[in-house]
């Protein structure tokens, strides 16, 4: 049973000529980790906003088709009800700081205060989310005094703490170092093991190849192809458009042209696969 169900979804922002999303069909199962790749302007963020209910409840414009999460149709729900099921963290961490709170601990508690969680449970949940995202030592700092990467961890923790059924992340690691990125992917895996469904828009294909269950490639508002990470990330369709290619895939492709990588072998996406492939 799909927890997220998009059918023939087309959406156009107000005052624009072309739809940002065209005829999107996507079903995501409970506990699945789906990564969305695509060049800038492909509609990744719009897809995230649609899943999180901000299209059409916050951004006006015309949405057609079916957007269904946990069996509820987006049109029939209000944004404040919708966000209880679907959490959203996006790219710019600075603008995700509420501004209403003085410390990181309070910042994480902000969402829980809003939805009326009792104080004791609030503290337990905040501590757990801080532990999970590795920001325990920042509890008493002002969220504004943190670095971009730390702020992104806070933004992620602020949504995790609300324990949504579906977590939508729009480039949540854009300002993080490789260690931070690895930790975020680790957190995502941990959350999916607990039954949370995660949809992630991201450029870092090497990490996606290692962690995601499924990859959706978006191009000009349409789904170009979707499937297992290895298939999508090495498919000619994606490679020809010039995005979603890891450096290991590019090297192996060049090597294949010169006969250094056998044509029957599948192209690698990660370092380990490349070492294995070249080693033989």
């Amino acid at each position: 049973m799909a927890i997220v169900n998009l059918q023939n979804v087309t959406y156009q922002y107000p005052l624009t000529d072309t739809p940002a999303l065209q005829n999107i069909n996507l079903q995501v199962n409970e506990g699945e980790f789906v990564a969305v790749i695509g060049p800038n302007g492909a509609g990744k963020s719009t897809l995230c906003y649609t899943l999180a209910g901000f299209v059409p409840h916050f951004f006006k414009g015309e949405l057609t088709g079916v957007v269904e999460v946990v069996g509820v149709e987006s049109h029939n729900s209000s944004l404040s009800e919708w966000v209880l099921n679907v959490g959203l963290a996006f790219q710019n961490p600075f603008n995700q700081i509420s501004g209403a709170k003085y410390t990181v601990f309070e910042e994480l508690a902000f969402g829980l205060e809003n939805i009326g969680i009792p104080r004791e449970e609030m503290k337990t949940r905040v501590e757990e989310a801080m532990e999970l995202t590795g920001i325990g030592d920042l509890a008493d700092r002002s969220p504004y005094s943190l670095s971009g990467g730390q702020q992104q961890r806070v933004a992620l923790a602020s949504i995790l703490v609300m324990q949504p059924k579906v977590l939508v992340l729009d480039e949540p690691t854009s300002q993080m170092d490789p260690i931070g990125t690895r930790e975020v992917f680790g957190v995502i895996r941990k959350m999916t093991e607990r039954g949370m469904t995660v949809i992630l828009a991201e450029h870092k294909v090497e990490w996606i190849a290692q962690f995601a269950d499924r990859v959706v490639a978006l191009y000009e508002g349409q789904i170009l192809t979707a499937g297992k990470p290895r298939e999508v990330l090495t498919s000619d369709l994606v490679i020809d458009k010039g995005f979603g290619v890891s450096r290991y895939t590019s090297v192996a492709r060049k090597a294949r042209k010169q006969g250094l990588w056998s044509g029957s072998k599948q192209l690698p996406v990660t370092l380990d696969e490349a070492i294995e492939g070249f080693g033989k």
Partner: protein
Amino acid sequence: MHDRLSFYYYRDSLLHRLNPLTKIALVFGLILVSFVSPYYWTSHLLVLVVIIPLIFVGRIGREYLNAALRIILPATAFLFVMQALFQPLEGEELFRLWFLHPTLESTLFAFRNAARVFAIASSFTIFLLTTHPRELMTDLTRRGMPPQIAYVIISTLQILPQMQAKAQTILAAQHSRGMDTQSTFLKRVGSLVPLVGPLVFGSLVEVEERAIAIEARGFTSSHVKTSLYDIPDTALDRALRWIFMGLAILSMALRIWLS
């Protein structure tokens, strides 16, 4: 660069521990008494027997003195001089200098007003120095103030220093591209344009994202909100509020009865 925009200083004192509403009642009680009391020396007395002891109770002597010397005293001194010189009250002339001829009446009038302003400004200062905005807003929201108002106040206090920092960054960027900000007045005014544009439009874009961010965290949820902090409201607080209200009513009654 300020990290935050707040006058609050943490101390372990009775005044800090009082409920914010009690302190608001105290401030407004002082204002009311100082204005409606029929006695001449009321405000002066309030400063001596209420304001100054409160400063010691709150252990904020140095911070208060700082504010008093820099803002409150110069402002009240200015008010005193202006009113003493120009308040057109007939009476015994103290001295005559060119066109200035303050009278005893105008000087007494000015002295009373200056004491009033001093008492009011001081009680507000004590309130701000001993009350964290977070406690004030949490308490008022619990008492029924819309959370949107609390959000606007706190986020303004927090975001203004951030905007200030951003203005500095933009200024430095324009500087490095040869903008003139140091020569003639007209050129400086002209150079404000490339500063204000990015600052204002940038902030407008940010507003949209921030709205999405707080909406994603259930800000407009219809659930009854809870609070991470418990702001104590003790029997002492309630008793004090009744006393302040009683004194305010008493001073109004005295005013009506004696006039």
